[in-house]
């Protein structure tokens, strides 16, 4: 059984009389341990797809099953708990809380899962260790470079040992060198068995993942399976790294 099962999912916005199909009848499975990317130009619906996968939004039609739970039927409280324990987010603009230091930012998800302070501290430090940020634990986000901030954000996404990590344009705000470092961090995490979904408009970045989904106008227009790797695209991937 796949970790995530999307069945005929549509998301329809209404603007006056006009109907906008942000997602149009999308069916998708994500298996445990997969490293995949969702690619598409802006406005293609990839963000909407990620929001639905990430339990931040609910579909208009269709069903989403995440780790055995039907998302479209879950209450707001259940969704919050799922986001807290099963999902981790990494954003383009890092989204660290500016008034908290790095350690406190990483502790944030555990506060909402009511983990005692001592345990929280230990796990946050371990997560920072895994992204090589333990020496910056007491720094404020504003005292860090973009790459360091993104590492802290990844530590925050990791800290509750989620089933899936979603990364929305994680390199979009970084120079190419730091971007590569972050991407290789994701690859390392993937090799440790984490399920990672990368959302990007840049096919070069998408090339690092074995599985790629291209989305346009709310529909999956192309899918690349790791079982059938095309040599050309593999070459591109290694070039990107």
């Amino acid at each position: 059984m796949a970790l995530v099962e999307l069945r005929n999912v549509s998301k329809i916005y209404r603007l006056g009389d006009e109907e906008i199909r942000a997602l149009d009848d999308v069916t998708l499975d994500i298996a445990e341990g997969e490293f995949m990317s969702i690619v598409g130009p802006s406005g293609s619906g990839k963000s909407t797809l990620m929001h639905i996968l990430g339990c931040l939004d609910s579909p208009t039609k269709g069903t989403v099953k995440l780790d055995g739970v039907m998302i479209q039927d879950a209450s707001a409280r259940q969704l919050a708990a799922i986001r807290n324990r099963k999902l981790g987010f990494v954003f383009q603009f890092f989204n660290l809380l500016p008034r908290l230091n790095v350690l406190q930012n990483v502790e944030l998800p555990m506060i909402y899962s009511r983990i005692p302070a001592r345990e929280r501290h230990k796990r946050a430090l371990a997560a920072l260790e895994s992204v090589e940020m333990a020496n910056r634990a007491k720094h404020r986000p504003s005292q860090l470079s973009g790459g360091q901030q993104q590492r802290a954000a990844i530590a925050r996404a990791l800290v509750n040992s989620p089933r899936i990590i979603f990364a929305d344009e994680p390199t979009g705000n970084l120079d190419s060198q730091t971007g590569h470092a972050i991407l290789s961090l994701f690859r390392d995490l993937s090799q440790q068995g984490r399920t990672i979904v990368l959302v990007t408009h840049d096919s070069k970045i998408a090339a690092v993942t074995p599985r790629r989904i291209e989305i346009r106008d709310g529909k999956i227009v192309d899918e690349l399976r790791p079982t059938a790797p095309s040599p050309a695209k593999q070459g591109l991937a290694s070039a990107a790294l």
Partner: protein
Amino acid sequence: MLLAATFNQILAHKFRSVLTMLGVILGVSSLVAMSALVAGMEKGAREALIAIGGLEKVRVVPQDIPVEQRHLSDEAVGVTLNDVRALQQSAPLVTQFSPEMRLSATFSANGKTYRPWNVSGVWPAACLLNEHVIAHGRMFNELDDEMARNVCVIGTATRDELWGSPEKVGREIIPVGETVFINGMPFTIIGMFEHYESEQDRKARLLAASEAKHPSRKGIGRDRGWRASRGGYVFTFKNQTVYLPLNTVWMKFRYGATQLAISSGKTSRTIEGATGDPRLSRLELKIANVNLLSEALQQIRNVLMTTHKGIEDFTFLTQEDWADQIKVFIHNARLSGGLIAGVSLLVGAIGIMNIMLASISERVREIGIRKSVGAATSDIFLQILAESLAIAVLGGLAGLGVSVGLVHLLSSVSPTDNAPIIRVGPLIFAFVSSVIVGILAGLFPAIKAARLNPIQALRYD
């Protein structure tokens, strides 16, 4: 953790938080100060009420004969000693009797003259009924009354005027045994009442006395006269009381024989001849129980209607009206003060709500982040509510501190007869209202913040 986050947020905007608290501080401190002022007034009023004999006292005074009985005016007997005897026998609800003949008298002694406010011929029981306390010498007794001796008991005001007050002379003069001429007739002073004053005046006087011992504090003295002396008029008048035996006033001044019923000339003119009884200027009675006041009044009325042959030439004065007036006044003061305090608390609440709304609109992104890492709606709701509550509670605590200072300031800037009293009850009430203000003011912003859509919140800049 919630607590830490809350105080973190408040400390991050110190100036803004203090400004917001100011509304609550003002509300709480005005609430406490107002109730302290009212409590002071209430205490002063209660002291005064006790000083004039309490609620159980009923006065029977002569009054104009009603229009429909005018033709009987020749028959009207007035309030006389006969009434007292009748009441003693037939009105069991009345426990104490004090007939009074009020004299208009000039006192002269020691080369000075003085007209006290109240010179009355009374029975020895008057002392008890009017809450007089003999400080020096003795009250005259039944024998003095029987023999119509020329003795009197004076209040401190008479002593002050004729011999000098302790403040001026520097020592207390006790003129017991001295002779004083009342309307030219020599009387021996056999006793003096204690000096009556409100509790606050007593404190002020003792303080002044202790300060006077330090020579360095000596300045130019200023005599403000008795009129300027602080303290309730009740106490001022009470100190001007002089009591003579009732019989003495009747025999020596032939009081009742010439006394007309009080007020306008066209009332009853019967002299003692009509019944052979001395007329009284008034009759003071004490009833057994204040709860039986109306029954007692009915009893007195029934007896007096008989002795007065059905002519209603008397009326009752009770302290109830006065007590009611005090109650109404206190109630109004409390209401208006409460209204002011309530309005300023409301303003404080609006201030908190305003700042919380501003705060959440600049923290939309933070709320989005918190939601994305798994904060439930209730977590965000509680966070905002806790912040608003913390501001209000801090403001409330500061307000309690400020109120104590405010009360001291008020009483030193404008000293009143009744020093404000800070009680625990209003303090607790004020604090609890600040808590309620915090919750109510935080409710709407908290709901608004909790309902934010995380996707839009994350996109927000």
